[in-house]
């Protein structure tokens, strides 16, 4: 128990004793008869009652401070606004890149894909002739097989 809590509790007890004494004083000193309350009785009684209320407030505040000091407190969850905005901007940029690449893939059907088939251009021989004949680049249409020539969202072949 710290000096602060001892001070608070001790002071509250002192105020409570003073208030209790003021409440009881007219009867303890026999200045209040059986009739109506005198001005002295009324003043002492209400003053004592107010001091008792201050005593109760003091005890509540002091006990509250003790409880708050003893209770383990979690650190507040604080996310800086700048960090949140940066994360949102980064997410927006990534989504924009994905959308633009998807749009580019969909808007370019001749880029290696026709009606679900992959159009391939055979590489020309190095000397430009095949069996003595001039070879033109041959194109073949063959269905796309998995794992071959399939474009991904990023536009790269798997």
């Amino acid at each position, binding site marked *: 128990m710290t000096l602060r809590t001892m001070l608070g509790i001790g*002071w509250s007890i002192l105020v409570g004793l003073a208030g209790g004494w003021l409440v009881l004083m007219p009867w303890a000193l026999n200045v209040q008869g059986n009739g109506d309350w005198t001005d002295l009785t009324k003043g002492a009684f209400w003053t004592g009652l107010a001091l008792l209320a201050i005593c109760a407030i003091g005890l509540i505040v002091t006990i509250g401070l003790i409880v708050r000091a003893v209770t383990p407190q979690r650190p507040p969850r604080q996310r800086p606004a700048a960090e949140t905005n940066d994360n949102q901007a980064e997410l927006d940029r990534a989504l924009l890149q994905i959308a633009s690449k998807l749009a580019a893939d969909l808007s370019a059907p001749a880029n290696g894909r026709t009606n679900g088939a992959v159009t391939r251009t055979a590489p020309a021989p190095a000397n430009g002739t095949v069996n003595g004949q001039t070879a033109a680049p041959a194109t073949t249409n063959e269905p796309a097989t998995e794992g071959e020539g399939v474009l991904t969202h990023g536009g790269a072949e798997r």
Partner: protein
Amino acid sequence: MSEPATPTASTASTAATGLPGPTGGQAEPRRYLAMLALFVLGLMGGIWTVIAPFVLNWPTGADGSWTDPIRDTVITGAVLAGASAVAIVITAGFAARAVAQAVAVEANPTV
């Protein structure tokens, strides 16, 4: 990645009070302010208790001397006001020290 622990205003207040510190550096002075307000209230109550017999014209003796209720009420109020004044001085000292520690930690958090 773990960073080395550095003392904060919270740990400084823990060292000052011997109890787990609050989460914020300004929480400790605020607690002292609550107690200061309470003690000021007690001081005002004590002062009122001292002057109440005269303000409310409580009956005095035949020669104007104090009766027992007046004497007891004045003594009670004086004790209460004195205790509250002492408590205010002590709490103000603790609050000033807590504020100084918080300011020092915030100015140089690595020390």
